[in-house]
């Protein structure tokens, strides 16, 4: 037996004073001790000069580290514990994400392509003086493949890239639709629809696309074969596809926002905006919230779960012609740019809708009257570059200046000077529409009346793509697999909320369970542990009649002069009342059965009580003795009665 114990002790010694599994905690303790005091001399010598990547460190230690980032923030001064916990959690989460991002950038920058840029030699050189010819000459023909001019009839044209940036779809106002692989230079399909076409969007990948036509939305496949006519989308003007929820959304002249599930074909919901024709539509890719711009200058944010807009904002004095959401790393859906018929471009911070961060008037904008061509249009690139198309030119601005108010500006005025220009390019034909940056390339495509122009914007595209999300070089098998996986991982539309946009990269933590009575309530006992009375009450079987009857107390109340005296009287009378035999009988028989004798006694008591109350009233002279009572036959013999 002893040898048996010795063998066991060698594996795991028995823990003293422990009921559970022996030795389990002792091992943990030993490990913790090791962590605090490393005995390894080599590790000690190396430790000073090395560090584990911050993303691999445990989250709480990284939060308590002495890093100068926001992780050090303390919220001890906040009194509300709920808010304090929320702030602490969100700040630690954001610092964790920050460190993740730093590590990721370290890893990705080391390999693959590097992003484009323009390097100035001296302080007097201006990047906006560069023309496209200069850029093409400088970078060479191979790198300048993105620079194209498509001369087409039936404009103005709108365009849209797939999420991997390889395929480009264009639609002309008069019904010319084409979808092609612009990198390989092969055409997938070309259609002449011969009716007004207002917008174009690819669905989950380039094999399906939707066109907003004169009356309805139509879905075509890669070869241009019409697959579906979506009759519930009436007179659509703008389309948007939510790739993770597989939802196609359209807005139109009727002012309805229609969501349709493209994986099942079901119409999810049709929301009436009640704001008239909608001019612009865009999505926030981080939260799947849709941003709508209306003719009266209102910007509204919609989720399919609310029948009213989640946010409603008077953004411009004229109609909102274009909305763009900055999905780049620095912003992650936080900054929104809008352009209006009033000739202004405004950049908003979604955490504070009260005032725009920067707004400026566009020189040749406003003209919006031309048929089919709107006013100013805006788009953000993957790196946060802002393209503004207005009148006869396209201007590109770079991120930090677009998001911050200009130095030495009057803080009270919303409209300031425009941010420093990065690039500009004159467009040959008016009206010009639809700037679109190509994902993972330094290319910007702008449509105009006589076709489309693609220009080079060095530094606009993200050089590092992720093959699980979007890969410009993916083959047929990879595309098929991604389609199936996308369907399996399809998110339900109920998950679309506005709150997710505030905490990018992470879902909001689930709300703590609260009791129906509200916070601060003592949690209820389980049913089995309640007292019998409580259990009867909970199941609704408790007989509550005869519970609050205390006639003597009422009488005492009437006689009392002030509150304290009343209290005393109450107690006293209660004691006295208890000893009454009838009441004792009733108390003893307070069962959950309606017994005829108890009911009768109760009725009798009630009658007596009424009688007594009446007597008191008569004595005080409040009521006449005969008032309210039915006359009996014997009353005629009373003295003094006529």
């Amino acid at each position, binding site marked *: 037996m002893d040898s048996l114990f010795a063998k066991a002790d060698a594996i795991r010694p028995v823990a003293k004073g422990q009921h559970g599994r022996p030795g389990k905690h002792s091992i943990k303790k030993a490990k913790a001790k090791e962590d605090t005091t490393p005995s390894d001399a080599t590790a000690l010598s190396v430790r000073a000069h090395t560090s584990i990547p911050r993303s691999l460190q445990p989250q709480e230690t990284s939060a308590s580290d002495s890093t100068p980032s926001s992780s050090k923030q303390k919220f001890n001064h906040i009194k509300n514990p709920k808010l304090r916990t929320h702030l602490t959690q969100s700040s630690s989460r954001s610092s964790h994400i920050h460190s993740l991002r730093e590590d990721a950038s370290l890893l990705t920058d080391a390999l693959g392509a590097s992003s484009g840029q323009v390097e100035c030699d001296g302080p007097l050189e201006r990047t906006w003086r560069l023309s496209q010819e200069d850029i093409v000459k400088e970078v060479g023909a191979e790198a300048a493949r993105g620079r194209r001019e498509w001369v087409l009839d039936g404009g103005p044209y709108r365009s849209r890239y797939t999420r991997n940036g390889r395929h480009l779809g264009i639609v002309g106002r008069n019904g010319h639709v084409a979808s092609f692989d612009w990198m390989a230079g092969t055409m997938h399909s070309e259609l002449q629809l011969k009716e007004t076409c207002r917008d174009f969007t690819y669905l989950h990948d380039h094999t399906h696309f939707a066109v907003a036509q004169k009356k309805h939305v139509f879905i075509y496949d890669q070869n241009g074969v019409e697959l579906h006519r979506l009759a519930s989308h009436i007179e659509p003007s703008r389309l948007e596809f939510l790739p993770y929820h597989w939802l196609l959304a359209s807005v139109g002249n009727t002012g309805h926002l229609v969501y349709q599930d493209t994986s099942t074909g079901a119409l999810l919901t049709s929301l009436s905006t009640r704001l008239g024709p909608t001019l612009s539509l865009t999505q926030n890719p981080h939260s799947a919230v849709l941003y709508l711009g209306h003719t009266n200058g209102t910007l509204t944010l919609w989720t399919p779960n609310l029948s009213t807009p989640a946010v409603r904002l008077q953004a411009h004095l004229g109609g909102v012609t274009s909305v763009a959401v900055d999905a780049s790393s620095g912003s992650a859906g936080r900054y929104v740019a809008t352009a209006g018929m009033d000739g202004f471009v405004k950049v908003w911070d979604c955490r504070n809708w009260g005032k725009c961060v920067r707004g400026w008037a566009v020189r040749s904008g406003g003209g919006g009257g031309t048929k089919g061509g709107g006013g100013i249009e805006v788009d953000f690139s993957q790196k946060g570059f802002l393209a503004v198309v207005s009148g006869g030119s396209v201007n590109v601005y770079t991120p930090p200046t677009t998001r911050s108010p200009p130095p030495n500006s009057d803080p009270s005025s919303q409209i300031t000077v425009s941010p420093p220009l990065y690039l500009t390019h004159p467009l040959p034909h008016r009206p010009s529409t639809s700037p679109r940056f190509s994902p993972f390339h330094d290319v910007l495509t702008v449509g105009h009346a006589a076709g489309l122009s693609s220009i080079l914007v060095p530094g606009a595209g993200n050089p*590092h793509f992720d093959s699980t999300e979007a890969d410009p070089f993916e083959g047929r098998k990879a595309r098929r697999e991604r389609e199936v996986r996308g369907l399996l991982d399809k998110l339900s539309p109920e998950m679309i909320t506005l709150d997710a946009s505030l905490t990018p990269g992470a879902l909001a933590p689930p709300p703590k369970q609260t009791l129906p009575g509200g916070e601060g309530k003592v949690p209820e006992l389980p049913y089995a542990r309640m007292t019998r009375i409580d259990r009867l009450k909970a199941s609704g079987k408790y007989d509550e009649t005869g519970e609050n009857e205390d006639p003597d107390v009422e009488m005492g109340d009437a006689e009392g002069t002030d509150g304290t005296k009343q209290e005393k009287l109450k107690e006293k009378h209660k004691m006295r009342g208890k000893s009454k035999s009838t009441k004792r009988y009733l108390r003893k028989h307070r069962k959950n059965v309606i017994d005829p004798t108890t009911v009768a006694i109760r009725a009798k008591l009630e009658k007596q009580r009424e009688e007594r109350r009446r007597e008191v009233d008569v004595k005080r002279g409040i009521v006449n003795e005969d008032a309210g009572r039915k006359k009996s036959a014997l009353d005629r013999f009373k003295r003094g009665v006529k």
Partner: protein
Amino acid sequence: MKIKVLQHSPTDHLPARRGDPTPTSRNLDPDMHPFARARERMRALNAAKMDRMFAKPFVAALEGHIDGVEAMARRPNSLAEVASASWDGEIIVHDIARRNHVVKIDNAHKGKISGICWSPYEENRLLSCGSDMSVKIWDTANLRDGDGDVSMEAGPSKFQKQKPVAVFNGKFAFNSIDHHRHDPIFATASSLLQVWDETKTTPISNITHPTSHESISSLRFAPSEPSVLASVGSDRTFILYDIRTSTAERRTILSFRANALSWSPTFPTTVLLASEDHNLYTFDLRQLKTPTQIYKGHVSAVMSCDWSPTGTEFVSGGWDRTVRIWKEGVGKQPEIYHTKRMQRVLSTLYSSDARYVLSGSDEGNVRIWKARASDKLAVVNTREKAAMEYRDALRERWKFDDEIGKVSRSRRIPKPVHKTHLLKHTMLDARRVKEERRRKHTRAGESKPTAERKKVVIEEQS
């Protein structure tokens, strides 16, 4: 002015030769992966659903016995062979891979066979004991057919050859038998514990406890210390013996009697007891005052238990007609197996490779189950295996999510079992409420609640 435009080189992103896989690239920036957590949750939900969808644990039923199968034993150094013995006195050695009978001994004993074990000392030797007060040793090599298969319609001439190698006669009906790990010694349990030498006709020692007159229901040798023996008996006792000194070293009286016991194959002092009070207990012999873990789940007496060879899981069979598979140290929500025709489960066994579980039940069938309900039995290629492991990790990570936890926890339970479960809980609740009321109305501090763990052992003697 230096200008550079982003350019992806096709050589990095396109396959070098025709037929090569396309190279993939990664960007770990969380902003490149919108809805990453939501999508992972959806994948975890799908993984949980797929796990339940593929959960088809029943593999096969091995027929052959006419009456209840009370004892089973896996053959040492063999993955496939398992011996089973039934109440009609029949022994069958099954090949669970081919699902046929290797050896079939009719009328091995008169009346029921209550214990069976393989001899590690000599290969092919099988020991059986029964209520006919005898222990028999069989040489299965001689009984085996040429092709390793015994046809069901074997003629009577065949049975004449089925003679045991040795017969030992006792004075009482035997309840259980186990063989020493490397000596020709075996022990039997009846109203007293006897240790036998294979070469002698009488027991070499009779071990009794001075104050006990019980019948011992089960006994097992400790795997790591072969001279130590443990037994459970009708007197609610759990006794440890040393056969070198021929004494009962420790005696523990439990609140309810245990029906079966099993030694952990990996930890020397851990013993599992299958108790009559619907629970299983693991004890550390160094601390016999309290069990290390109570395993609650059965709704009737637990009749048998067996550890997996890995020592991380064990199986139990109960009077409630279910087989349950437990993780060591996790006292609730076991995996539950049942079929319509399976009656009281009298014996359970893990296979030697820990992939299967065997159950022998009252109606005479030996059933093979998968140890993991959603295991794939076919050959699994590397990508499939990686996908399975990813799904397992996802389920583990998201098990605290309401929806996912519900999918992976919920089991369809037979209605009688469920009703009994509800009834049992009502009774336990009532008992607890009564106890609480009693405590409430006694003087403060007079009576304190006793931990469940401390109620198990009534007395320790040594």
